[in-house]
């Protein structure tokens, strides 16, 4: 199938893009790498009147290493992260997550900001970044605002992005040396929609455990303090304290009614915890 007709603009800078968005009438969509939107356009599931292409905007391809964080422009691609073309403050975690997204040819165009805007609950960044404690920076002519990733993803394919607002950057905090990271997803083959995703960042010395369970039919479950999963306290032997029953109950409460689904999610979570402990 071929896309329905639309108009197309390629603004020269961010300011022009924001102005274009603010002045647009009718249905307007932003496109960057187009790796999520492209298939939907071709299937005519999405029929915008105007596409605003921000892939060329230099402001969105910048990366700044601040004191305790890395600010990644929205149009940085998965391949940029995978290849280490940008600094890594997550001790390899983001590079590994990036490398597991879809396929290389897709990663060469797909962007971190685009992936978050699409808000697919089975997407890697949607699940990994909340565990890393990342924030998202949104820009419009009205100004700038910033949200935690988990507050940005509001539903399956739904985000807090407002009219004429653009994802500008993602802020990723530096991972502490003592922190342990685990990221596991269940797919039958590379590139398939994940059936379950678990991301864990465990730092027994300070911040405790942050756990994300994703690829459910809703925003990921984000536990800022996952101590209850480990018997109430995150200790050095946390992986031995993991209580699958609590995880199962948590999933049931989150609306995962099917027992096989819960079983798979819990198994994936257990593995992510084991990976963190390894």
């Amino acid at each position, binding site marked *: *199938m*071929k896309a329905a007709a639309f108009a197309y603009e390629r603004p020269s800078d961010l300011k022009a893009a924001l102005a274009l968005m603010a002045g647009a009438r009718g249905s307007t969509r932003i496109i960057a790498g187009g790796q999520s939107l492209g298939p939907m356009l071709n299937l005519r599931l999405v029929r915008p009147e105007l596409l605003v292409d921000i892939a060329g905007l230099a402001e969105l391809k910048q990366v700044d290493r601040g004191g305790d964080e890395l600010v990644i422009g929205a149009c940085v691609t998965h391949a940029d992260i995978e290849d280490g073309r940008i600094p890594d403050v997550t001790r390899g975690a983001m590079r590994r997550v990036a490398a597991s997204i879809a396929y290389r040819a897709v990663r060469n165009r797909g962007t971190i900001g685009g992936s978050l805007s699409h808000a697919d609950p089975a997407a890697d960044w949607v699940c990994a970044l909340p565990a890393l404690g990342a924030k998202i920076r949104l820009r419009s002519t009205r100004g700038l605002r910033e949200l935690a990733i988990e507050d940005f993803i509001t539903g399956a394919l739904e985000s807090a992005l407002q009219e004429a607002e653009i994802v500008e950057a993602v802020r990723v905090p530096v991972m502490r040396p003592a922190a342990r990271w685990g990221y596991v997803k269940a797919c039958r*083959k590379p590139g398939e929609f994940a059936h379950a995703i678990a991301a864990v960042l465990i730092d027994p010395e300070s911040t405790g455990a942050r756990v994300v369970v994703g690829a459910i039919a809703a925003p990921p479950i984000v536990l800022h303090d996952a101590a209850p999963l480990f018997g109430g306290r995150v200790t050095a032997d946390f992986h031995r304290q993991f209580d699958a029953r609590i995880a199962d109950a948590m999933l049931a409460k989150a609306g995962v009614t099917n027992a096989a689904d819960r079983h798979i999610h819990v198994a994936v979570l257990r593995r992510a915890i084991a990976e963190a402990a390894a």
Partner: protein
Amino acid sequence: MSEVERLSSSSTPDQGVGARLPRKEDDRFMRGRGQYVADIRLPGLRDVAFVRSPLAHGRIKAIHVPERYSGLVFTAADLFGVKPIRAVSGLPGFKISEQPVLATGKVRHVGELVAMCAAPTRAEAEDIAASVTLDLEPLPAVYDMRRAREAGSALVHDHWGDNVFLESVFEVDITPALDAPIKVTREISTARQCMSPLEGRGVVATFDHRLDQLTLYTGAQMPHIVRNGLSDCLGIEQGRIRIISPDIGGGFGHKGILLPEEVCLSWLALEKGLTVRWIEDRYEHLSASANCREHYYNITVYADRDGRLRGIDCEATVDSGAYSSYPFSACLEAAQVASILPGPYRMPAYRCRTFSAATNKCPILPYRGVARTGVCFALEIMLDAVAAEAGLEPAEVRLRNLVGPEEMPFDNITKKHFDSGNYPEAMRRALAAIDIAAVRERQRRKEPDGRLIGVGLSVYCEQAAHGTSVYAGWGIPMVPGHEQATARMTPDGGLEIRVGVHSHGQGLETTLAQVAHEILGIDTAKVRVVHGDTALTPYSTGTWGSRSMVMAGGAVGTACEAIAGRAKHIGAKLLQLDPASVSLRDGRVCGPNSSIGLAEIAHTWYRRPHELPPDVNPGGLEATSGYKPQRDSGTFSYAVHAVIVAVDPDLGDIELLDYVIVEDGGVLVNPMIVDGQIYGGLAQGIGTALYEEMPFDAEGQPLATTLADYLLPGPTEIPEPRLDHMQTASPYTMFGVKGIGEGGAIAPPAAITNAVNDALRPLGVELLRSPISARRIVEAILAAREAEGPAA
């Protein structure tokens, strides 16, 4: 192992029968210069998009075309005089379906064609199609083949009174089996699949006024059969139709039926004078194109305590979809099930009843392996169930019942005539290669990572190149007769071969050249194989049923022999020798002390005819010959597949740790290409076993309509198997070759499922439905735990 029976000796074995010759066709494909239907450019070409039914079953109340597009949209009402597609089987009781090329009255499956729109680009044609609105009255969808057979079901074809295309029974008195000490009954089923060659279907149609001829470019495995069907539907004489089937991006059976789209575009070219194309996209392919493989078996196997089979009693239903597709019909699969279920196993009693059920789904067509993949799945799972019941190794049960080499040729209980082979030897080789004892030891030790190990076997046989006598009995619109080929030497000593079969990955441009080289000794680089054009090739039923090497190979060999005889006669006269005293070697006619090359003989025939002897055969260096094997009941290639799996009981993931195939495909013309066919077949078999499934909801909506949902195995899902070839020649065919194109796809679902069941037996799990997806495995394990009670 038997030797190749050389019809003429060639001193360059690197090019003849048996050579691993690199393919002649590769270069154009690797440089992006293949020419597929979508690559054809004609002046004034317009794209066609179809308005398709969104409902599985509904009554058409109205079709609304916006006024601004009138004249660009055509519906059934426009197709005056075009007949529906009818594929009638001669088997008694067969109910006839008529498939309108554009829907009339009712729509009977999602994606059925309702209207067509032509525009300068596909995007614009889709714009028009999107503006057409259908007023459909929804009717209850017949989406489950077993419910379809129940009284009170909605009817796909109202006047039938039920939803059964055909019921058939094959019985050799089952009663003696009934008192067997072992009786195992199971319900086994396989999912509906979509063949998914990477290139979909495609059609370009134009009318050639000079020739007064419709030229239809279509990716078709059987171009001459398409011409038959088109002529029937359009009511025009065959001479006014030329079918050109260019490069094809994968067939597997999917390009073996007449499409309503082909009729529609032909009509636009004939009646509207348009040059038009339609290129099937992946969404159309998955949601609206023909499917395959959806079987359900209720099967009981009777055996003695030592595993000897006493009999099989089976009821099988095949979901045939809404229409009988042309030319193979809606009952090809189900009716075959009854005759091929026993396979290479001996048994004294047998009964099988089959149903071809009509449903509100796409029609079916024969996919690589046709009914055999389902049959092999059902029977081989049952043999493992018998082994478990008898406390025997699965291999033991098979060895006890497989036909022995001393019994060849062998007629099994359904009168299938096995031409040659040594099945027990193949089994023994497979067992040695996979090392069952080591697997059992490993199972006892258990895996450190918690996974469960299992080993599985399956045996299949593949009847190929079955001909007139077999197909005459089916009474379908196509019965293969003699296969013909034309061989023509060119004045410069090259050779052109014309065949009515079609090559779309099998490498016939290479292997048929190898056959010609074997006979004539002409360098394969100078042999050109022409195929895929009804104007240039002899009539043929085309490429299906693993028949091309046996049939067209035999025809090419026969035609080349005719040329060889004539060339020897001319050569002998030019050498001033007695024709009886010369032989043909390495492309030269040789006497005791002198020789002359075929190129010079060709030059003489074409350019210097005044030097020819007066008694020369006026047919010259061009011959069209027909060929049939000595017996046309088919060749039987076969294999044993043995696989070791590791199953992750938490996630249901399966890793194929080792895969062994011991295969006997008769004499191999090009072992490299045969290996490729087996590897490719295995990949599709693994798809059937683990990944591919077209699910439907209760509204008859297909639910895997993109490749994100319909999972095709990729490089990480397919292991590199270990192959071992036996080469038992067929006694009936030229060179002793057998058809081998489909076999690789037949055995894997059974072998892998048996291995998974072997691994999960300690958990009380037995999987009986393909694909055995990760999800089904997890659910089965959880269900087994539930059944065991809350103990653990």
